[in-house]
């Protein structure tokens, strides 16, 4: 009697458990990411360095840990900012800071360590300064090389699909 199995519901329960496991893994990863966002106060607490403009300090493929708080931005800090109209964040160092007495607003000029000129040509339109609301976060920590995988996945999407396909296959076919 136990051997009689209906074709329709063969292996439904194990499959559902597998899907649940997959869902749990995805949810845990999401929780960790969102938790990091709360702790560090940034929308993206980890960024990958994409250009060589901060060499020899940061090379392409390094990972930066960001933090953001209400402390005013000061010269020498390495900040990550978005320029209006471009969605790639830029990681450069503040070389000039002017803090207004009345509003507390700060005018910032940045420059990449490895660049000859400052970033004024990168700011959108006729903008001369960055302000606090342009800054996504300050770089406080650093890990070398780890981000290179992300760069490969962005520049050759086939690798990304391959990786996701392999991972999905492993999860579904594994026994635990």
């Amino acid at each position: 009697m136990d051997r009689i199995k209906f074709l329709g519901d063969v292996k439904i329960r194990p499959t559902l458990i597998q899907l649940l496991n997959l869902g749990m893994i995805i949810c845990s990863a999401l929780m960790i990411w969102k938790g990091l966002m709360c702790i560090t106060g940034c929308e993206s607490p980890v960024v990958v360095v994409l250009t060589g403009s901060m060499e020899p300090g940061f090379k392409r493929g390094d990972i930066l840990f960001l933090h953001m708080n209400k402390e005013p931005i000061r010269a020498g800090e390495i900040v990550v900012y978005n320029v209006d109209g471009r969605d790639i964040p830029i990681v450069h160092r503040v070389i000039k800071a002017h803090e207004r007495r009345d509003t507390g607003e700060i005018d910032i000029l940045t420059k990449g360590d490895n660049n000859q000129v400052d970033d004024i040509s990168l700011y959108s339109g006729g903008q001369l300064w960055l302000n606090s609301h342009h800054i996504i976060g300050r770089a406080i920590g650093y890990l070398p090389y780890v981000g290179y995988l992300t760069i490969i996945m962005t520049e050759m999407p086939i690798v990304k699909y391959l990786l996701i396909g392999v991972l999905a296959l492993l999860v579904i076919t594994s026994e635990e």
Partner: protein
Amino acid sequence: MHSAVQRANTVATIAAILLATICAAASFLDAFNSPSLQAHVQVVKINRFRRQLDGNDEVKMTLKMSMDLTSLFTWNTKQVFVFLAAEYETDTNSLNQVSLWDHIVQEKERASFQVKVPTKYPLIDQGTNLRGKKVGLVLHWHIMPISGRMIQGKMPLSNFSLPDSYTTRS
């Protein structure tokens, strides 16, 4: 029972955990480094002090600096970024920080040096407040590690006063 894939998975996981622990430990130990550095700066000459076409004051000068940054280096240090900032206040701005010169030191052996250089970046004010202004020179450093937390520090050096009137090109 233990397939090649499982073994590879275990080795990779342990390697990753070990690497992460070493990186964290290296960065943690950096916090115990208490640096004692010495530095001295002197404004040799004001090369140019004028009002730009867009209305802001601009100063270029020659600086003579000597510093010893060797105590900032630990074995987890990749480079030290050092810069000299001119800091002053005006009626409209409670703080102005302008970097005049910066340098990257990559080796401990080259961390003690003297230079006499023109300023890399001009001191440009937001306005025309620099005549007769008392400006503080502050040395800032940024220790960038091989992995882990970056450490910043600063040390005020000497003050100097800008001339009361613009100078012509010399």
